[in-house]
């Protein structure tokens, strides 16, 4: 990872010296989900621009949007968004100086991942169900 690193200061975060545990997983997922959501926002801006371009242009992406692939993307984004939201709220609690007990943190990490998955399932079920 540090290959080619020219800065004299040590690289952070120090991934290689950590042991795997749920809170570490949620921390990594928070970064990964944040990156994905950024591209999701860019996509949202593109869809808005397509709306302005008119129904003729929007109809070109419509079949892709309302397909099995579209539902899968919706499911993924729902899960990622819910995870980032819940974990983000936990980060705010951490910023307030609360919730640093490692055991409780690990439990909450797993709970957040589980809740995000459930929310994604429910939202996708509602969305796909409302098509017919």
């Amino acid at each position, binding site marked *: *990872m*540090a*290959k*080619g*690193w*020219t*800065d*004299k*200061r*040590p*690289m*952070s*975060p120090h991934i290689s010296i950590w042991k795997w545990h749920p809170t570490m997983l949620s921390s990594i997922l928070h*970064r990964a989900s*944040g*990156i994905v*959501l*950024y591209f999701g*926002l*860019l996509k*949202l*801006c*593109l*869809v*808005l*621009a397509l*709306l*302005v371009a008119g*129904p003729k242009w*929007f*109809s070109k992406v*419509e079949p892709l949007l*309302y397909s099995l692939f579209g539902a899968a993307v919706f499911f993924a984004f729902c899960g990622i968004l819910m995870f980032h*939201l819940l974990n*983000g*709220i936990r*980060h*705010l609690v951490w*910023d307030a100086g609360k919730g640093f007990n490692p055991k409780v943190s690990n439990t909450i990490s797993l709970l957040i991942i589980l809740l995000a998955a459930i929310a994604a399932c429910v*939202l996708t079920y*509602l*969305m796909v169900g*409302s*098509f017919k």
Partner: protein
Amino acid sequence: MSDLRTPLSKVKGHGAAREGVHEFIAHRVSAIILALVFPFFLYGFMKALPGGYEGLMTWTASGFGAFTLLIFIAAGLYHGRIGINEVILDYIPSHDMRTFLVLLNTLAAFGFWLAGTMAILKIWLGA
């Protein structure tokens, strides 16, 4: 107050970068805004998406929907730009590449924000 840092730590450049408080606070403030506006965004999106083109246009053209989208996009891209910058600064080894990507990220965030905002305003005010 006396300086507690050893000369060696200064020479090696260890220690905090002494900047970034602005980003730290802006990141959290935008996070709170996003968390507050998210329920409205989700509700509007879930209602509008099944309607296809018409549904999305109706949502964006309504004052409430337009405001929801404007705030969500602005706070989201601002929050995202800071976050992606942090990732770039953490993991890109080459100084030149880091500078280039941070610039690109800033331009992308601003460009897409402008495009999205103009689209929302055009649909909302033009309706």
